[in-house]
């Protein structure tokens, strides 16, 4: 059964440098039948801490992986730069296409207007 005080004391002690030690106040806080168990678990926690002592990578490995990642970053940057110039070119093409379409529409409108105007003149002359 999980007793709240046991959980709290274990959790609090795991974060302390001397996680195996316990104060009298904490000891008395726990029901008598669970005190022995708490002491054993605290002792075990201290042993686990000793067994899992931090391990660091070798400096040569650390440096090499760092350089590899930097090289990858450089490659990614140069790839991004190659892609980037295509954007303004695309905008120019789109702009030119829009300009051409406007010019074409203007020409058609002019021709239609001229045709209608000429036709109305012919109709007027025919009536007189």
């Amino acid at each position, binding site marked *: 059964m*999980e007793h709240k005080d*046991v*959980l*709290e004391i*274990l*959790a609090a002690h*795991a*974060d302390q440098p001397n996680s195996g030690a316990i104060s009298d106040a904490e000891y008395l806080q726990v029901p008598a039948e669970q005190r022995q168990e708490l002491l*054993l*678990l605290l002792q*075990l*926690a201290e*042993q*686990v*801490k*000793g*067994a*899992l*002592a*931090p*391990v*660091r*990578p*070798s400096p040569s*490995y*650390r440096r090499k*992986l*760092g350089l*590899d*990642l*930097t090289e*990858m*970053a*450089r490659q*990614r*940057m140069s790839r991004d730069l190659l892609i980037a110039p295509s954007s303004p070119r695309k905008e120019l093409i789109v702009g030119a296409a829009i300009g051409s379409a406007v010019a074409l529409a203007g020409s058609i409108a002019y021709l239609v207007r001229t045709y209608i105007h000429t036709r109305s003149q012919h109709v007027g002359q025919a009536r007189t």
Partner: protein
Amino acid sequence: MEQQERLLVERAQNDPLAFAALYEMYVDRVYNYIYQRTGNHSDAEDLTERTFLKAFMHLEHYMFRGVPFSAWLYRIAHNVVANWHRDRGRHRVVSLDALVAYGKDDEKPEDLTQAREEQRVLLDAIRRLPAERQQLLILKFSEGLTNARIAQIMGRTEGAIKSLYHRTLLALREELQKNKIG
């Protein structure tokens, strides 16, 4: 710390070369975490590299959303180790480094110091625990993280972590007793 981490991540998302700062900040911790899960330097080096490559490739998709970058990185490391265990058919991990340090299993116990032998038995028992319990013990004792931080990394509440810690110690004690009897 968290604010500084967020700034570094933002920079690295815009400038790939800035990833180097994140690497420097976390390589030791990630390596240690993976070493404790695999038990040897060779695999720890291989899997640390995979972890950072994945982080680099997917960094643009990372968003804070309450999960710090370090937690995200530990999750990648955790998954990389889980895949490694799965690929190896879940056979028992024997630490080559531990064998060098402590001698072969069939050597007479009197050749070894009592303390080292006990530590070897304890490490074996820890590595027989389910992955999430190993993760908890490593983050707590080897990485020295608080329960709150561990909760963020493991995607649980702080209360759940305390409870899991208690159950992990009980399971470990049982495992050790079983070993003694066996």
